[in-house]
């Protein structure tokens, strides 16, 4: 990437947290958490509310100091190389935080100044970013007239204005309409392809299947599992099946010796774990051949969601 010799040697790309802990008074928000987001990949940070995701992101963004443990950004220590680390990090908080009376263009220009970008190309850079998040038409409107989703996109542009190599996004998809979500997905894949390390914390797990290369599951301030999306898919997936004749479906599944769960959704359905797509295809064929009137047959959840739900189950 044309950078001068990077300190820290090999494996020093992206952002790494090693055994970080942080407590607020009696509350241990993060305990010995390990986290690694390599360059060129999208890493999802998944966990229930209060799991310590935002606290971890604040520490990664060098806003919050860990009580113990170390954080390195491209091999640099935020405590010692403050400015260098800040130049490399783009952070999009979960709160929107816009200066309401300023226009989108003014906000981005101010932020560019705060990052000490060269004045010569600043206006062009701002226009470029506005275009990238499709806010060019609204560039000169005060930020207060922007909708939540538009403010969210402005927030993303703000995180990207100084072209950071590590991008930390806290719930970037919340408040976005489906079209914008797809765009965000495409944009994040592009940014990863440019070699940036991207960290996304999100609850919308089905989306993450499409974006994330790997996921770090956290709960109660600890890292529970580190898993790539492929691994997650390989671990099996839950399928939901419904039939106009529920009894026949249940009978056939019992006959095949499969354990299943009756779901209490709006339509009567059952769900069961299948290891892979071949298993699914075989089961569907068997059911149809057996004359079970199958109405729907589809994955009940995303691969990452499956892991997440299993972890939730373990917790109880």
């Amino acid at each position, binding site marked *: *990437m*044309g*950078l*001068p010799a990077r300190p820290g040697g090999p494996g020093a790309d992206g952002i790494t947290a090693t055994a970080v802990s942080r407590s*607020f*008074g009696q509350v241990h928000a993060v305990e010995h958490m390990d986290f690694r987001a390599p360059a060129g990949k999208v890493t999802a940070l998944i966990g229930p509310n209060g799991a310590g995701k*935002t606290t971890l992101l*604040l*520490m990664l*963004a*060098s*806003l*919050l*100091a*860990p009580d113990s443990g170390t954080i390195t950004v491209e091999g640099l220590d*935020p*405590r010692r190389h403050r*400015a*260098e680390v*800040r*130049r*490399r*990090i783009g*952070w999009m*908080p*979960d*709160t*929107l*935080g*816009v*200066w309401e*009376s*300023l226009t989108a263009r*003014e906000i981005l220009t*101010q*932020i560019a*100044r*705060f*990052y*000490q*970008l*060269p004045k010569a*190309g600043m206006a062009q*850079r701002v226009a470029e970013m506005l275009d990238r998040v499709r806010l060019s038409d609204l560039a000169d409107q*005060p930020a207060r007239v922007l909708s939540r989703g538009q403010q969210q996109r402005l927030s993303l542009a*703000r995180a990207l204005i*100084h*072209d*950071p*190599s590590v991008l930390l996004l*806290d719930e970037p998809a919340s408040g976005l309409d489906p079209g914008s979500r797809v765009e965000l997905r495409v944009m994040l894949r592009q940014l990863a392809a*440019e*070699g940036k390390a991207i960290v996304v914390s999100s609850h919308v797990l089905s989306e993450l299947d499409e974006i994330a290369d790997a996921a770090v599951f956290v709960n109660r301030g600890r890292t529970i599992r580190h898993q790539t999306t492929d691994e997650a898919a390989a671990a099996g997936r839950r399928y939901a099946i419904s039939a106009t004749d529920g009894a026949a479906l249940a009978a056939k599944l019992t006959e095949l010796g499969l354990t299943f769960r009756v779901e209490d959704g709006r339509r009567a359905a059952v769900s069961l774990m299948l290891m892979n797509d071949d298993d699914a295809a075989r089961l569907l064929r068997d059911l149809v051949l057996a004359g079970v009137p199958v109405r729907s047959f589809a994955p009940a959840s995303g691969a990452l969601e499956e892991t997440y739900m299993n972890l939730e189950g373990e917790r109880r």
Partner: protein
Amino acid sequence: MSQRTEATQRPPARGRGAGYLGGIWDVVVLELKQRLRSRGWYIMLGIWFILTGLVTWLTWAAWNAQREAQRSYSTFTAPETGPGSMIFEVVLAFVLLFALLVAPALSANAVNGDRAGGTLAILQVTLLRPGQILWGKFFAAWAAALAFLVASTPFLIIGVALGGMTPGHVVVALLMLAVEVGVVSAIGVGISALAGRPLFSIVVTYLAVAGLVFGSLIAFGLGTGLSQRTIMANQAQYRSYSPYEPLEEQPAPMEPEYTCSGPLREQPAVHTDRVAWMLAMNPYVVVADAIPYPVRTSNAFGMSSPVGAIESISQGARYAMAGPDGTYPCANGEAKPRYLAQSTPLWPLGLGLQLLLAGLLMWLGWRSLRTPARRLARGTRIA
């Protein structure tokens, strides 16, 4: 990618100091842009202008009415001094009062208001240093409060134009008002960085201002009660003068009007000089004491009391500061200069203490803005 490498490899175009100031300026611009676009600020400014004008006019009308009344009830005509001094003093006192009331409102939510709105962390995550954010917020709040002083300048000038005062008075008064507003703004910004909620910090800042204005008086009053000591002094022998002498021929008050004789004895005295520093912190005392006035010893009418409120406050405070050693008749066997000759100013002490307080709060505020943050105020989220 080119952008980032450009940014990292770019040699610091400006010097370190200039870069620091540049960051402060950027924050000031950001803050002032927001203020200039809020309608409330203009409305407040308009109300301020009208109120100050009203007070000026009322003072002038009251002075006129008083003079009319004097003319119709007695043949005695008071010396024509013009309303200048009085208008100037009333307007000055009023402007200072309202400046002290407005400045906390403009400054005390500067930092935690942003924290609540989620925009503080956005600044903190950039290359801005905590000092730049804090100084930027302070200068912006100060500038916003100074606009109110600018709006009241015409009336201070009217006070001068109506006679009795020099332009120097206006300049010094405005300068001191500006400094006082700056002190309050710094206190407000410092507290806003320390306190979690804007409402709380605004209230605390108002209390701090009340502490300076009223608390200093109360503390001084209580403090004098606790500083009863004795002083060595002998007897004062007052010169007798004839009550039938015409007013103009009374002895000029330049010399002490008594002589000291006899053995030194312990006499009870209040050591006001030990608690005068509390009085000195009062913004009114600082402003009044800094405004120059002529030494009255050569007053043609032999008036032994100061002219106007400003001088009274200043002389009273200086009297307290001089303490019994400087003011008690025949302390240590020496005749003391008269009341009006107290010429050691105490506004530098008062202003110094105020700046110390403001500086301490700003420093504590700066500590709370440092990142990566180690300690957070209870109940605050950094984002």
